[in-house]
């Protein structure tokens, strides 16, 4: 599957080289990001920050292969995502990329266990194995007691835990989370952040989180700040005040 890279030797799970994305809206070109180069290591928890409309989510979706970049190259593990067909990207997502959304996006007509085992079922894995692995993933996120419930019967925090289990069940190389705490109160948000951090460090899984929340960013290994489609900061998170100051400084500049 995909196209092999000969320069992925530094332990990078995701490598993006000079990637750009452009949309046409009523005849006007909109560039969510331009010429972004990024390397993300195995087991790293990376936070992408930036003001609304700065292109964070589009960058995340492009890195995960939901949308192809307009130019530049992206590699996930050894696979060149940017030159893959739609079907190849779908199969890569199914097996190597887990997604978590702010609005959970669980299937309302499936119970918790079926929701989590969905990616495995899609991959043709037997029902029993899928169910076992889903139960295992749910145990890791503390949702073993809710296997037969429908999403509408869960709280927001519980729904997000199920969504995280669904992302983990495939043992992905990378988990991409788009504002995973945006719909949760601060306590539940903290729990989810801890869970993501634990994933990255214990399982050596790469986690990329798009967030507005400085507390989430402060728990990450690395933060990048996106402004007007460009990476303006790439480094350690530091304190909330430091990050805020950095963003304000870049914004004013």
């Amino acid at each position, binding site marked *: 599957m995909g196209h092999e890279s000969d320069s992925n030797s530094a332990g990078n799970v995701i490598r993006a080289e000079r990637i750009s994305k452009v949309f046409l809206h009523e005849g006007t070109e909109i560039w969510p990001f331009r010429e972004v180069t990024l390397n993300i290591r195995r087991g790293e928890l990376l936070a992408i920050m930036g003001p609304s409309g700065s292109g964070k*989510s589009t960058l995340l*979706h492009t890195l995960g292969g*939901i*949308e192809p970049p307009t130019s530049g190259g992206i590699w996930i593990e050894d696979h060149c995502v940017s030159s893959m067909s*739609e*079907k190849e990207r*779908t*199969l890569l*997502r*199914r*097996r190597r990329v887990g*997604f978590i*959304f702010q*609005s*959970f*996006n*669980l*299937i*309302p*007509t*499936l*119970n918790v266990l*079926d929701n989590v*085992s*969905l*990616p495995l*079922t*899609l*991959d*043709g894995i037997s*029902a029993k194995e899928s169910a076992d692995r889903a139960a295992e993933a749910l145990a890791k996120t503390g949702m073993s007691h809710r296997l037969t419930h*429908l999403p509408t019967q869960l709280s*927001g925090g519980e729904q997000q835990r199920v969504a995280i289990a*669904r992302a983990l069940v*495939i043992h992905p190389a990378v988990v991409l989370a788009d504002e995973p705490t945006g*719909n949760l109160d601060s306590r539940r948000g903290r729990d989810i952040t801890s869970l993501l951090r634990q994933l990255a460090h214990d399982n050596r899984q790469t986690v990329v989180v798009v967030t507005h929340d400085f507390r989430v960013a402060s728990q990450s290994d690395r933060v990048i700040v996106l402004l007007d489609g460009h990476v303006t900061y790439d480094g350690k998170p530091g304190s909330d005040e430091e990050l805020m100051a950095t963003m304000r400084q870049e914004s004013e500049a």
Partner: protein
Amino acid sequence: MIPRAYFWNTLRLRPIRTCLSLISVAGAVAAVMAVLQSTIATRMQMNDLHSTLDSPVNMEIIATDTGPFAQDDIAAVMKSDEYVAVPIFRVFTKVVAGSRASRCLTVGMNSDDYGRVHDVQIVSGRTATEFGEVCLAASVAEHLRVGPGDEVEIGAKGLPWLLKKKVVGVYQVPVTEQVNDSATVLTTLDDAARLGKSRGKVNAVLIRLTGDRSEWREQSVRESVQAQLPKSLMVTQSAAASDLSRPTEAMIGVGLNVAAILSVIASVFIVFNSSQMSVTERQGQLAVMRIIGATDDQIRSMLYREALLIGLAGTVLGILPGIAGSAFLEQGMRDVLGFRKMQSVALQPLSVIVGIAFGPLVTMISIWFPAKTACVTPPMQVLKGGSVGKPILTRRLTLTLGVAFFIIASVFFALTWLKIAPWVTSIVAIACLEIASVLLLPELIAPMAVLYFRIAGWFAPIEAGLGHRQLIDKFQRTIVTVAVLFVVSATSICVGITTFSVTQNIESWVERTVDADFILFATRPSADMSDATSLPLELKDEIRQLPGITMVDEVSFCFASVNERSAMLAVQEFDLHRTIPIDLIQGDMSTLQDRLQEGEVLLGSVLANLLQVGLDDTVTIQVGESVDTAKVAGIVREYTAGGLMMQMDSRPAKERFPIPDPQVYGINSRPEDAASVAESLKTIAGQHGLVYQSLADLKNMIRSMVEAITSRLFLILVLALVIAAFAIVNSLTMNVIEQTRYLGLLRVVGLLQSQAFRLFLCQAVFLGAMGIIPGVLIGTVMSYLTTNSFGGITDHGVTFVAAPELLAGYVVCGVVLSLLAAVLPATRAARLRPLEAIHEE
């Protein structure tokens, strides 16, 4: 592979959606099955009628003076390998049983010849084999209340007394018996000859070809037989009575074809709408699946499997209503066509197979479009609530296609109009016009929405504003919903108004052509009219003597050939009438009476069209052996004998042709004596075994027939609307589901429950009105074109009757149903809990 749980839960946990989908498919399957079955059944019944009317007798030998002749004269032609020859004796008789009497045609033939030329079925008893035995037609036996073993008395013209005969059997001729009462008595050849005071003689020989029955062979046999006959005998062409009904049947055929095509179009639209909604509702879920790794093939496969299941389940549910609907429609058709006694046609394999295949097939095809849209739209775009991709049919494309279909329809109509293309082309043109109208509909919706919501804004500004925005934001859905209502309305109105026009035409034709207050006749003429029984001539004087009688007109019917084409000749005393009782299309009414007295003729428009003759042209008429020419004094609208009708005045007709004795007396009386005359005529009818009918009876009968058809029609139209109203439920439910969060926000900022409710009612009225009103207008135009396309068959066509009360009733019912359809989604919207709705995704 998508988990089976998703598949089942999708159906189980969305009961309203599942029900709507199932009802759509079941309704469509039932409609297609019902229309197809009733179409096939009607065609079969018409074909049965044809096969009987197309008498197996190819030709007859009769005397040139139509009198009896010796069997020795025909000995040379009786045996041949090429045909079967059956000698018969026909005589008009009066059959009496106790106090009841009946005027009949008695036919004598050897018992071995039963069934050799006519399809005679013995219902009870046996055939008449011995002298003094008779076998009665079922209708005669029923009227006289006799059966095998009973005795009857038979009298004939010129016989001083009645002869006793023993009834040995009752028979019927399939189909004709069921269509019309035949009044024939079968007896032995010797018996009939004695009744005709011509012992040992016959007065006709029926000849039926064996093997090839082509026209050229018939011609060659006819010439060969004629060559062997003495000059006193001649071979005549057997009257092909079915020719007389073919124009009417062709007209019915057009109606059935239009109804079948349009009902299929409407059904496809309903199923398409339902499939579109079912997928659109789950765009978000499908997008999530694609993000986490479902391939397009998996999504499509899941949707196709789901469609197959819905299609199959809907089909199972639709079969029973389909059977019931087909029985309902078939019964209606039988009532309309007068096949009342005909047995209903068994459920035909074709209609069942098409019905069963239609559900799954159309559901599968209709899912293709939304499935493709679901797979081509970027999933993140769907999750962000943006537009669900570029529609496959863009506005420009629909406009182009709409104009193209409109041009095709116009060309086809022009070709039919100019008689370059056959009339069936007009059916294709009508279907093209409907498709063109649907495709051009989006161009009307946007400006009409501005107008409607501006007006609605005067009464409910907030609701109108929000409703307008929502409908325009979801323009594709609005178009599909309106299109479903439009197609169903246009189809229903086209079929409805056309049927209404035909029945109204018949009613008005009766008003114009029947001016007698009372009618007396012996028996209803059988389907081939040759069996029409003549009335006793002395009866006319008896009736004239009654106090209050102002006119007794006698009408005779006989077969004739006009320019070598079979037709019915009706002869009556036009000079008795102050206004000639005809529906004149061409000709001058002021000079018509004089021209008819001079021996000129009136031609039915269908006959004139077939013969390609017009006013003042000369036609050659043959009745029996008499041949003469006559000028055409007028063209009239006629429904009798399928319009293949010619009319002459009694005096010149009798001078030139062998016209049989009258079969109908038309009687008028002074208004003040009407009641006493009616009583006297009833008594006379009873004494002579005649049928009495007053004009009021006739009008009431036709009026009740028209009312029955109209009420049945209206019921069908409303049923079609009810199914179409599900499109509104679909569309508005989708609007509620998609805008739950938005509605929640509005509720938080102060939108009242009643306002939320009105918002959806406001939308429903717009959707209903936009689909129904243009649908009614286009349906009316289509009906106008359909009635005009009948002109290709009948020349005069059918005069279009707009029936404003039917149209207004339909629009009102449609709008009310639209409002009712909105109640469910509107209630759902009004009951949303604001905070939950805000968090709903």
